[in-house]
């Protein structure tokens, strides 16, 4: 899974039938500190995410279909499967040489 920030909403009328009824969002992948990293991607929303949300994206067809609850949508590959509340990360403390917990 990839962690990313929802940055835009895509509106499309003419689309493959497997994609009808879903919100299509642009997600910018971020690193653990929240900085943008890599190219943005489009994902179908399975958790009522919105612009500005930090989300989890699954980029694998079988899992994406489970998230959306539609096993027959064979062309679907990428879906948002969670909204991130918080990330607890362990950072290296170079001064003490040890590892501390950071918020």
């Amino acid at each position, binding site marked *: 899974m990839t962690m990313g920030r929802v940055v835009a909403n*895509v509106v499309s*009328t003419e689309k493959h039938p497997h994609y009808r009824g879903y919100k299509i969002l642009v997600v910018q992948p971020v690193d653990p500190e929240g900085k943008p990293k890599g*190219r943005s991607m489009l994902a179908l929303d399975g958790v009522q995410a919105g612009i500005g949300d930090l989300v989890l994206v699954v980029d694998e067809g079988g899992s994406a279909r489970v998230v959306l609850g539609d096993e027959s949508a064979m062309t679907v590959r990428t879906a948002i499967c969670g909204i991130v509340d918080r990330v607890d990360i362990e950072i290296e403390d170079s001064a003490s040489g040890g590892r501390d917990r950071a918020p």
Partner: protein
Amino acid sequence: MRLGRVIGRVVCTQKMESFEGLPLLLVQPLDENRREAGSALVAFDTVRAGEGDLVFFEMGKEAAQAIPKGWFNPADAAIIGIVDGVSGT
């Protein structure tokens, strides 16, 4: 899925039987601000997109499933929808 712009058409006479009658389009991947993001690629069209259209496309084995003929086709990119607008950027 990625955003892209249709920049051309690819014509192929000698091709897999399952590809007969399906348009092959040249797509330039874009980011949400419509800046170029990566190299152009060839994708099958499933939504009658035309040159200049902003589209979104699927890659990988799922793209093969988007082509209506047969249960599996040797394709790894397919245009899935035409974009009316991108909001929030």
